């Protein structure tokens, strides 16, 4: 059985889902890709937008969530943290 994801895992899943889609993604697709409820995703999106890690872009009635330059650095930092924890079996 898979263990419960902590905040690092959830944030990592959100950011890597955006990255895999070429840097921007539709909110509904992100919800599906990061396996989150609407409520949880909204709260994480708000938090990450305030941090400047992601931004909301609206073009021709369509809304996208895009990763920023800071976001790209942040996801690389998260990868290091996950690798570090993994080396200790955490």
């Amino acid at each position: 059985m898979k263990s419960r994801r902590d905040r690092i895992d959830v944030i990592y899943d959100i950011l890597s889902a955006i990255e895999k889609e070429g840097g921007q993604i539709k909110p509904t697709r992100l919800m599906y890709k990061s396996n989150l409820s609407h409520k949880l995703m909204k709260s994480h999106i708000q938090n990450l937008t305030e941090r400047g890690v992601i931004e909301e872009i609206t073009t021709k009635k369509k809304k996208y969530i895009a990763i920023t330059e800071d976001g790209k650095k942040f996801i690389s930092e998260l990868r290091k943290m996950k690798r570090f924890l993994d080396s200790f079996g955490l």
Partner: protein
Amino acid sequence: MFRLIFSPKWFYGIDIIFEIFFVLITLLISFYGYKIYNLSRNKEHKYFSISFLLIATSFIFKILTNFDIYFNVFRTLRIGFHTIVLSYLYNSGILYVSGLFIYKFLTTLAFFGLFLLTTKKHSKNDIYLIIYLILISTIFSSFAYYIFHITLAIILFFLCTHLYDNYKKRKSASKFLVLLAFLMILASQFAFMIIFLAMEFYVVGEIFLLIGYFILLYNYLMVSRK
């Protein structure tokens, strides 16, 4: 009767330099663990950071007590009168025993904490019971120093078996390095156990520790700079 000094005379001070190095490495890892905790809010990460902070604190106590014994007592021995020297030795003895007690207790607690974190499943009662046993073994190790090293070796052995399982699940260089680092720390305990044969085993133990903590530093640098 407890022994006051385990180090050979030529090694006085060198071990303190080694231990300052251990303090810096463990503080660095503790700080990084805390940084991760700030982001994840995962209690496991907080306890990981605390465990390394405890190791750093324990070494600070060891450094202070060894510094006092190596330099103050023996300087007094050379220049002081016999009676003053005896009283100073007595005071230093108390400081040494209490300082070493804190060092041993914090070290055992820290490695036990790391062991709990890797094994994950345990009840609160188990934890209280083991903390009590750690306290008892630390108290008795004042009379027989090797009890501390045996206790620590047992905890480290189980910790290493979990790290080995972790390595076996999905092999990676950093997992191997962490396993190797803790194996070195485990090996140091075997050297410390047999100091009664020759004081040089203290040096061997400190060198194993140095290698172990250096590997932990190397792993940290390798992972955080990739």
